[in-house]
């Protein structure tokens, strides 16, 4: 039966534990479900919702202005037609990838520490993809006819160009959003049953009752559910790798110098996971403090995320080096000029700053002290997020601004509406994420239960309670 809400924050015994000492089936359920059921939100939540809503308002204003005046309110001018819009798209979609990595790839690898962070990381994926989707939609200038991107019988007698990576992207991103949503819902199903059974308010009972579809914890259903999760993980793993691969095809299939290279797919996937883990940490560190979840999201989780960031950061560093080497070794004057411009031209400041953020700064993560200090890790994650945004900006803008003929070169200048749209989607993301925290269990209860000593089937009689 649901117990009186209390703040119980069972700290782990050592720095290596992934669950607080003394947690039982009941205590993990209470601690996670009570956040939603009691509705007592910490100050952080009100602050985040207020900030999110304000920025969402700004986003609404910008979008309205864009519909009225057109995409010219942004700084996009030929030759730079993609500007911030596509930079933001790639940045957001990359952030989403860490959620799928945690929920799918780490499930297949049997990494138990993922159990307490996969739910909110998957929510992060969904909302990041929603934010990403805004940019191509708005960038079209006429978003109300977005459905022209899909093949359907129409009176115009035309069809999409299936040989274009931009059409592949439509399929990749919409599949990714759908599959992430399905996977998230399947994972939520048992927890919705718990919410229904723990709820006291009749309205909560009805809503969670409908959403849980009648989940009753039957062993037959659990067996199917586990098969389903493994199958979805197996499907989501190649999917997540394919999505950023297809995003990188948007660039590599074009012949623009600085874009046309074969190693973009792995380079983009690594960068995506890199920035995604940074966002996981940016969310997890304040959440676990504000909601007293340090016994569920422990220092070990932060440490592991830091290690993944370091590893993917090194892959990204290798990609930067290889990219530059290939440009030089290719003997192609346009390619060489593009990279020379990147390093010394009008965007050199951005380029060197991104190298500092993405290569130099994360080397601090070699030190355990940094990885186990939430404040430092938070700061480092913000640096990585900035660095990864700049990386996409430099790839897109510096390559388009100075391509083949110097007579057709032109510089990109962002406008205040570029900034407004970008921070507007940050508001959309924050608002959606904190709404999720308010109405759904942000940590998977059924998976964390499996980490408690009480949950193991033993030969001897052991009664933990």
């Amino acid at each position, binding site marked *: 039966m649901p117990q009186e809400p209390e703040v119980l924050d069972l700290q782990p015994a050592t720095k290596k534990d992934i669950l607080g000492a003394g947690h039982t089936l*009941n205590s993990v359920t209470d601690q996670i479900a009570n956040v939603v059921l009691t509705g007592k939100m910490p100050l952080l939540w009100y602050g985040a919702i207020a900030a999110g809503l304000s920025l969402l308002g700004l986003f609404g204003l910008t979008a309205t202005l864009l519909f009225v005046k057109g995409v010219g309110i942004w700084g996009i001018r030929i030759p730079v037609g993609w500007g911030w819009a596509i930079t933001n798209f790639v940045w957001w979609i990359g952030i989403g990838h860490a959620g799928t990595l945690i929920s799918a790839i780490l499930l297949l690898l049997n990494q138990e520490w993922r159990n307490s962070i996969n739910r909110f990381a998957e929510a992060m994926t969904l909302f990041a993809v929603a934010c990403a989707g805004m940019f191509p939609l708005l960038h079209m200038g006429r978003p109300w006819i977005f459905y022209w991107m899909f093949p359907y019988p129409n009176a115009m007698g*035309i069809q999409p160009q299936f040989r274009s990576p931009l059409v592949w992207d439509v399929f990749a991103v919409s599949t990714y959003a759908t599959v992430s949503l399905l996977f998230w819902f399947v994972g939520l199903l048992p927890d919705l049953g718990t919410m229904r059974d723990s709820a006291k308010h009749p309205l909560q009972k009805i809503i969670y009752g409908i959403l849980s579809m009648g989940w009753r914890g039957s*062993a037959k259903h659990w067996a199917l559910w586990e098969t389903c999760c493994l199958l979805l993980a197996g499907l989501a793993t190649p999917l997540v790798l394919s999505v950023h691969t297809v995003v990188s095809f948007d660039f590599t299939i074009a012949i623009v110098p600085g874009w046309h290279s074969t190693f973009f797919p792995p380079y983009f996937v690594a960068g995506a996971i890199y920035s995604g883990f940074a966002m996981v940490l940016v969310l997890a560190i304040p959440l676990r403090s504000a909601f007293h979840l340090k016994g569920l999201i422990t220092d070990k989780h932060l440490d592991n995320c830091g290690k993944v960031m370091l590893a993917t950061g090194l892959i990204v560093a290798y990609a930067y080096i290889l990219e530059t080497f290939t440009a030089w070794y290719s003997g192609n004057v346009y390619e060489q000029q593009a990279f020379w411009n990147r390093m010394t031209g009008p965007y050199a400041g951005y380029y060197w700053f991104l190298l500092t953020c993405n290569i130099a700064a994360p080397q601090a993560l070699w030190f355990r002290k940094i990885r186990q200090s939430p404040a430092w890790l938070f700061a480092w994650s913000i640096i990585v997020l900035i660095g990864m945004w700049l990386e996409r900006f430099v790839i897109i803008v510096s390559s388009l601004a100075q391509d083949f003929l110097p007579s057709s070169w032109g510089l990109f200048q962002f406008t205040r509406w570029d900034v407004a749209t970008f921070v507007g989607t940050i508001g959309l993301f924050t608002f959606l994420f904190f709404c999720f925290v308010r109405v759904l269990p942000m940590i998977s209860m059924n998976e964390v239960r499996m980490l408690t000593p009480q*949950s193991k*089937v033993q030969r001897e009689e052991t009664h933990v309670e």
Partner: protein
Amino acid sequence: MLSSEPTGIYGVMAEFDNPTDLVRAANAANAQGYRKMDAYTPYPVEELHHALHLHRNKLPLIVLLGGICGGLTGFLLQVYITVYNFPTNIAGRPLFSWPMYIVITFELTVLFASASATFGLLALCGFPRPYHPVFNVPRFSLATRDGFFLCIEAEDPLFELDKTKTFLTGLDPKEVSEVAN
């Protein structure tokens, strides 16, 4: 204890204190010859698979068929549009340019397979099913929290209310209750 008529009974349910007792009870019931039974736990307990004969299910097959359907849909859609419905001659390049179809074929394979996995799960579980007799047991709400339940159903050929009840009582449960239909 809502009804003592065997016809109005869904089954007999025993509650156990921990997963170890539940697994032992399920194994005992299986050895006794009971087949129509189910266990209810707050998280998946793999050790129950033997007693409940849960080693195989149809979901992988459904997902495979869904994936094949998706792959065919993606590929044939593109063949139909680029070759027959809307052919575009670009510098005399072949209309049937299959390498360019791979990405969308793959995406639709994953999309259809994932949808089959999710809806297959719901269908095989019989969801949505808001009402089920087991919910009549007052303490059953603990099955999604920290309760471990075993229910032998009245449909089982060996089921006899008193005998089954006595059998379950002998397995050291916390409580045994009849489940009204």
